């Protein structure tokens, strides 16, 4: 436990990578609800059990970064607005909102009938207390704070009107306040036990459709319906209380066991079915397989431009063209996953297809190596320059490397060996790994990063978002051209312009070979037939509020 706590208290960037590393991805523009094949009117009552691979380490969404934290607490924490799957926003705790012409002020009109479970009314002061809690240094927020972006402050205009002021235009703001991470604790809870918010259970006092009944760390978390709930998100299919009496989330790390629990009927939904199990589950009568592409940045190899080896663009291009990444994806995943054709996945808004620049050209890679001076070959068949191998150091943490990623890395290692490049894979425990990541002591780092649109690029490539300060710029990119494109996108609310910026940014990233995109994973869920009303919300998570048990 000690290890995991330290693990979490370290870099936000790394942690979010870890979360998405397990195949979890946040925020997507979903395409409908593939699992919803139900007939008949929804029924109230019953409970369901969900199996997830890991447990969030803390339970305060204002602090934690894990995707899983947002998923599990989504039915517990309400937001100001609800993101629809088409990219628009519906009312939730705010009935309406206006944005000032300069994009610096967002004014929300709040519902007047909302209460926290401790009886405290939800009002403008509650909004201010929560957003101020997120940015307070004592909270040590690792993700929610970055979501608030250029937040200056909250002004209470009257009991049900609140204005949020930003220091510069921030096109992602509505998206941000629609997320679980900017949900609302009871102001009373914030005042009376600020240090227990991460413990979950009875310390989590919210306005949500479910209350957090109990948690057994590492085993399960139990949630109960709130019967008087009547302020559901406008994006939902129904209003009023949730259908389910409650739901339980069990934490089952082993893939086989988790999927097996669903097929055996011990749990109702098993999340994150690995690629190797997708065809097995698909052919199984006892469960439905619901799968969708994971939006955001797919699993990719980021080259550390801050280290001598990859400071030269030509050295980076060796990695871009030297390995048959498409072939590995097809062979290893047997068509279940697709090769990545950009640093964003195709289901991500603002995606630009750059497959023609990512071809496998071993000859080109070898001539690049020769031009770099790696002309000799040592006894083991690796190319050398002045007796030094072209050795690429890639440390990785056991905890965030799934079996499929491990296999992929091994295949890449052998692929690189064919052109004389030595990929040195070193497995480390999480704290050691994070220390090395923060120190930038690596040549290659592989991760996937969840997100719904091009804003992911800002996390991954903006020069100031470095790993030591909680960013995800694991390639240590400091590129003024790229920074200009990313800031341009941040500052405009015009979606077409934004898309242009993000498309150019993707092209720039590939042109400069900061990253070698690998494969686009699918999020697969094994769902029992008793589970009805299943759909994904805009974040790509199971929408528990609408689920009912038949």
């Amino acid at each position: 436990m000690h290890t995991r706590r330290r693990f979490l208290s370290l870099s936000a960037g790394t942690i979010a990578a870890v979360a998405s590393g397990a195949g979890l991805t946040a925020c997507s523009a979903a395409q409908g609800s593939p699992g919803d094949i139900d007939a008949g009117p929804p029924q109230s009552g019953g409970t369901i059990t969900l199996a997830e691979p890991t447990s969030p380490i803390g339970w305060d969404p204002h602090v934690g970064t894990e995707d899983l934290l947002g998923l599990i607490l989504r039915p517990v924490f309400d937001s100001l607005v609800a993101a629809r799957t088409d990219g628009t926003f519906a009312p939730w705790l705010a009935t309406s909102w206006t944005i000032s012409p300069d994009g610096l002020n967002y004014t929300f009109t709040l519902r007047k009938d909302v209460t926290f479970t401790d009886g405290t009314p939800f009002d403008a002061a509650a909004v201010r207390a929560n957003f101020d809690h997120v940015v307070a240094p004592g909270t040590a927020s690792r993700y929610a704070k970055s979501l608030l972006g250029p937040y200056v402050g909250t002004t209470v205009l009257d009991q049900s009107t609140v204005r949020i002021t930003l220091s510069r235009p921030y096109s992602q703001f509505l998206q941000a306040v629609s997320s679980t991470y900017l949900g609302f604790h009871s102001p009373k809870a914030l005042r009376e036990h600020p240090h227990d918010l991460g413990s979950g259970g009875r310390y989590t006092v919210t306005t949500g459709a479910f209350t957090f009944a109990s948690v057994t760390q590492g085993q399960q978390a139990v949630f109960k319906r709130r019967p008087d709930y009547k302020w559901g998100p406008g994006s939902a299919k129904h209003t009023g209380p949730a259908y389910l009496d409650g739901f339980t989330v069990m934490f089952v790390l082993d893939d086989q066991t988790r999927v097996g629990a669903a097929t055996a009927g011990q749990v109702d939904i098993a999340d994150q079915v690995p690629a190797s199990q997708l065809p097995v589950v698909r052919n199984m009568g006892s469960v439905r397989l619901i799968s969708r592409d994971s939006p955001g940045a797919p699993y990719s190899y980021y080259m550390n431009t801050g280290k001598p080896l990859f400071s030269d663009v030509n050295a980076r291009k060796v990695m871009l063209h030297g390995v048959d990444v498409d072939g590995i994806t097809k062979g290893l995943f047997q068509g279940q996953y697709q090769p990545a054709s950009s640093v964003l996945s195709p289901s991500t808004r603002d995606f630009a297809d750059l497959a023609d620049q990512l071809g496998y050209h071993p000859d080109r890679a070898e001539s690049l190596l020769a031009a770099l001076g790696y002309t000799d070959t040592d006894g083991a068949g690796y190319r050398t320059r002045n007796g030094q191998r072209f050795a690429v150091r890639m440390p990785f943490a056991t905890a965030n490397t799934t079996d499929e990623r491990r296999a992929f890395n091994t295949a890449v290692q052998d692929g690189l060996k064919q052109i004389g490049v030595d990929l040195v894979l070193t497995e480390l425990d999480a704290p050691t790994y994070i220390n090395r990541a923060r120190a930038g002591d690596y040549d290659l780092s592989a991760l996937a990063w969840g997100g719904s649109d091009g804003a992911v690029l800002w996390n991954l490539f903006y020069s100031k978002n470095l790993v030591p300060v909680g960013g995800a710029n694991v390639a240590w990119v400091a590129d003024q051209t790229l920074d200009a494109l990313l800031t341009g996108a941040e500052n405009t609310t015009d979606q077409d312009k934004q898309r242009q910026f993000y498309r150019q940014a993707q092209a720039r990233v590939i042109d400069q070979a900061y990253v070698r995109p690998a494969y686009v994973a699918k999020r697969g869920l094994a769902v029992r037939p008793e589970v009805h009303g299943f759909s994904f919300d805009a974040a790509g998570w199971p929408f528990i509020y609408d689920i009912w048990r038949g």
Partner: protein
Amino acid sequence: MSVELALSDAVSDEAPARVDGRSRRIGAWLGATLLVLVLAVLVFPEWFSSGRPNATDVRHAFTPPSLGHLFGTDELGRDVYTRVVYGAGISLGIGVLAVGIGVVGGVLLGLLSGLGRGWVDTVAMRVVDVLLAVPELLLALLVVAIIGRGSLNVALAIGVAAVPHFARLVRGQALSVLRSEYVEAAKILGVPPVRYLGRHVLPNVGGPLVVMASIGTGSAITAAAGLSVLGLGPPAPSPEWGAMLSEGQAYLGTAWWIAVFPGLAVVVVVLSVTLLGRGVQARRLR
């Protein structure tokens, strides 16, 4: 992983089960033959497979067993047969090294205890008692957790976990020999301890030690594979059998051959070592 049972069985003074001598001899010969074959594979893997154990060929991943790939190919298109062949050296090496560590540590601790008597004996044997109370695998896990993963470390971990078993055996044997008249005579004649230990005690301890070590080797190989399955063995892409089992288990439903053949290899080797060990044991008891 009933290493403990196998070991205590090996040194019991009664014949373990009244299996008749003939079938035991046949078993021993079978074990020896298999072992010779395995040793040949270990020493000259290139005679048995022309491939490279870590060569990937993703376009031919998940190929079922066929004439081209006797044991099929794995998720990266690597030939499972070639990997099993090249894995023999690693898996057996870990087993033998582990038992070696167990024997050396056990002999030292056992002799010290037997010779020292008094408080040295009491302290050493209480330590041994405590270690014996902890399941071997758990002890090995603890050692790996402290010193880290990898082939050598796994061997060391299993070896350390086996030390108390060997120590107890050696102490028992040493005590009985040390009380014998000829050793008493040697002491009276002023023969230095090193001399009578080497001439009388060790040879008498040797017999049961060989039996225990040969049977223990099988258990050690299984334990090593077990630690590898838990992800504590040599890192990828090592063709160590336990690691192969671990990687293959994800595909049991779709490509059984990836895990089954390395599993069978473990079974065959452990069986042959154990059969041979039992044969030697029966011979000694006769």
